[in-house]
């Protein structure tokens, strides 16, 4: 066991070295370019095999990097959510993309998102974005509830009238998502209203409620973003001043202690004299 310790330390030092991390970032960007080129049929016809080899090679480097990080950090590797993200993204690329899993082939490009975990400033941005999610969670679940209830109602009410938009629950939910984004909702509403003139009630109420919920979702994000920035600035100033305050408190305390010692001395002298 003890014989592997230096090797582990060496692996950890290697993966944490700046030059190594820069190399990984450069490889991710390079891989992003080759994956982009693969979408062009002309490029695939001429350099398809070369692109494929390059893709395999970079994937191999990523796998080696991931193994080194796992070896260097041991099980602690799984404690960092970004490591798990890297593992998932690389793991998807390793699953044989044949038969029903062929959609995974297109998910290979998610590898480019490793740029987020590799570049510290991007990491900070995403952590900041994710910090806003808990504040949104309750409003988002309320929104989902509203959409679901409206979806069930709309399927029952308008399923027969406009099967293109409200034929089954899934279709209805998609249509209601579209209406929530405000895109082309009058087309949908007018088609339904041609047969059910009172359908405007449903659409107007749904749009008001869902946009109100979406607005509150936005506000939750905005508030949490502002809170963060304002609070950190204030906390910094507070901390700066607290240090000065502590210094002056220490001075006063020292002075008061000396005073107390002086008074105690005085008392001792008095008591020595009085008897």
């Amino acid at each position, binding site marked *: 066991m003890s014989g592997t310790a230096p090797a582990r330390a060496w692996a950890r030092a290697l993966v944490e070295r700046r030059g190594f991390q820069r190399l990984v970032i450069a490889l991710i960007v390079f891989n*992003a370019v080759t*994956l*982009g080129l*693969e*979408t*062009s*049929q002309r490029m695939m016809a001429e350099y398809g095999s070369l692109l494929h080899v390059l893709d395999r090679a970079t994937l191999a480097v990523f796998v080696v990097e991931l193994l080194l990080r796992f070896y260097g950090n041991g099980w602690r590797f799984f404690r960092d959510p970004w490591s798990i993200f890297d593992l998932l993204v690389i793991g998807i690329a390793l699953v044989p993309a044949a038969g029903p899993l062929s*959609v995974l*082939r*297109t*998910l290979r*490009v*998610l590898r*480019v*998102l490793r*740029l*987020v975990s590799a570049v510290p*400033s*991007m990491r*900070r*941005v*995403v952590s*900041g*974005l994710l910090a*806003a999610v808990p504040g949104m969670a309750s409003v988002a679940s309320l929104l989902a509830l509203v959409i679901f209830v409206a979806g069930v109602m709309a399927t029952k009410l308008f399923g027969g009238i406009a099967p293109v938009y409200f034929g089954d629950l899934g279709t209805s939910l*998609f249509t209601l*998502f*579209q209406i929530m*984004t*405000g*895109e*082309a909702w009058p087309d949908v509403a007018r088609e339904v209203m041609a047969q059910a003139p009172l359908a405007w009630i449903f659409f107007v109420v749904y749009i008001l409620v869902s946009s109100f919920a979406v607005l509150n979702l*936005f506000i939750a*994000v*905005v508030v949490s*973003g*502002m809170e963060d*920035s*304002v609070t950190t*600035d*204030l906390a910094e*100033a*507070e901390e700066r*001043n607290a240090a*000065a*305050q502590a210094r*002056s*408190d220490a*001075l*006063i305390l020292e*002075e*008061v202690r000396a*005073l107390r010692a*002086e*008074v105690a*001395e*005085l008392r001792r*002298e*008095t008591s020595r*004299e009085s008897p």
Partner: protein
Amino acid sequence: MNHRDRVRALVEHRRFQQFIIWVIVVNAVTLGLETSQRMVRDFGGALHVADRVMLGIFVVELGLRLYAFRWRFFRDSWNVFDFVIVVIALIPATGPFSVLRALRVLRVLRLISAVPAMRRVVNGLLAAVPGMASIGALLGLIIYVAAVMATKLFGQISPRYFGDLGTTLFTLFQTMTGEAWPDIAREVMAAAPLAWIFFVIYILISSFAVLNLFIAVIVSGMEKTVTSDLVQAEEQHAADQAASDQLILAEVRALRREVAELREERKEPVNEGPAR
């Protein structure tokens, strides 16, 4: 006072700068009139002459400022801005450069560098850019990844929207702005019913990122007002606290001295006493 100082005094004189602002405004009007075919037919010659004369004034003004400040002229980015705009107007707009003809109207933007209040506004806007940079880069990354996926997934289904990477990037930009995205989504979903997953996730993520881009701008704007006020109040409070601490410290020191003196005084008669 040599020539250079005199020229500098001239270009920094308020009257001179107001004159330049007026020339820019008049130039904006003549450039606007040039877009009207009727005006060009009736007064084309006069407009052209006026345009040339005003360009001449700008060139002379720039030359004077260059002469007055020499190389220091290029240290101020607003001066570089003026220089580039005037140079664009001077390039002969023929053949492959004919697009530069339309860029002549950029000269009106010199109003920004000439009016200090506008300068401040633009500086304030640019100050928000660094805060946006990382979220902007993240958004670019998201769109790129989504574009590569969409080109592979939907390239065959609707080549009009997802035929190659460039087309897909444009389509996804359109989807991000929310304009007519259901048309695109429904066309794709007719052939690939599960495509809704891609569209819904992409719209949610990209609008979330765009929203945060806005927030970054708002926050950076707010920081300068609200936070600086709050921090200033905090700083003021700390200064008051420090002053009162100083007072208390002085008082306690005086009290200690008082007690020390009392002790001395009490000690003295004892020391003077005959025996101990």
